[in-house]
């Protein structure tokens, strides 16, 4: 049974987005996604300063099984990336919603989060 925190929004492609008090958005992958991928061995991060459109590929998460593209759940400018994942990609398996965050965006439209799935909608999506 996957863990789906109540305060997050989700893309159908299994990224989560969290609107922070300072107006930035944290992005990672869901517990369901890490579970499906299995042992994560490599995370290709975007560069700080990159401008991403909603739905754009911003990186790759790779497991023993496969490499999967990461899609920006909302558009914006990358203001930070979690470079601890370079040395410890397994953090995505162990703690996908906190220490396993991938990037922080300044959203071009904060209202875009409303177009993502809420926890109930994501639960329905993954069945």
């Amino acid at each position: 049974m996957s863990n789906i925190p109540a305060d997050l929004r989700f893309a159908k492609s299994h990224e989560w987005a969290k609107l922070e008090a300072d107006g930035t958005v944290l992005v990672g992958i869901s517990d369901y996604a890490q579970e499906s991928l299995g042992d994560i061995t490599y995370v290709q991060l975007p560069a700080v300063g990159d401008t991403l459109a909603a739905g754009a590929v911003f990186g790759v998460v790779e497991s023993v099984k496969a490499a999967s593209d990461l899609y920006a759940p909302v558009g914006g400018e990358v203001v930070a990336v979690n470079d601890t994942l370079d040395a410890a990609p397994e953090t995505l398996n162990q703690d996908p919603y906190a220490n396993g965050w991938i990037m922080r965006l300044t959203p071009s439209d904060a209202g875009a989060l409303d177009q993502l799935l809420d926890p109930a909608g994501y639960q329905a999506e993954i069945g």
Partner: protein
Amino acid sequence: MSELRRTPLNAFHREHGGRMVDFAGWEMPVQYQSILVEHRAVRTSAGLFDVSHMGEVDVTGPDAAAWLNHLITNDISRLYPGRVLYSPMCAPDGGVVDDLLVYQRAPDDFFLCINAGNIAADLAWMRTQAEGYDVSIQDRSDDYALLALQGPVAERILQPLTGAKLGVLRYYHFQEGTVAGVQCLISRTGYTGEDGFELYHAAADAPALADALLEVGAPHDLQLAGLGARDSLRLEAGYPLHGHEISAEISPIAAGLGWTVKLDKPDGFTGAEALATEKADPTRQRVVFFRTGDRRIVRAGAEVRDAAGAVVGRVLSGTLSPLLNEAIGSALVPATAAAAGGLQVDVRGTVFALQLVKPPFVDLKKSS
């Protein structure tokens, strides 16, 4: 798509959290907790694998030995009762039909272990090769289950469960005995590069045997291990997998298995002429093993280029070595390109130089 086949341990795997996948038409656990954790356990303590999908064949009769020596590339005159031999089995063009283990139980009584995905094709091939020989070839695959206990503490786990004297059972030898009351063919073999045992036994006994091994193994940090770890362990050890490093297109000579091809066998064998021709050809294809210095996995099918950027070959297997923490793999390239060096691959836009390695990739401590 037809129904997946199940081993007698299917319920056992589910109870222990096995993630079940389709492997060669069988529903098998690819992992329980983590491929990386299971892999490391086999290198440091022990792992228990269900490999009951593998096929078993009885070969008996007055011509059993002569027929086997015609069928396979290795030489069974090296065998004696209690000894195990690894060998490819080739087509006339030198391509590999399958690779197998040959167990000699008595002078005219042999037992073969073959790959799960090839059972039907192997048996059909064996029968076409049997004309003129007084030999009985019997498929026993449904009768046997097979558990592999692998790792440096395997003997310590197994010994309390059996009266067989494991201390004198050498690598690539076997004996009959009971383990936890279950009649087994106890084989000191494996596909991980570690010391260990493969236990062939009646399918109905598999759940009881697996439970007994798991219970005795728990204080020794025995982990259940799935096919994911089995694949990364065999690649780290440099062992071929049929369909990857050996296949209908890749001969044992190309695969670096020349030591299993006995061209001087007095009565010859199927594929001997083609393999002799290939061996003498300096421009032949060659399987090489490589590491990249990076964690990004170079996957099977990736193009291999030479220093000038021309495509010269392809990757056959690729994974992350959990011990090296680095991508490792195998590739098929012309021997001339391997000798010239400068081989490279592109992983999603990043080019990596292949550092060619003579396997195993890590120090192994097999018993001898």
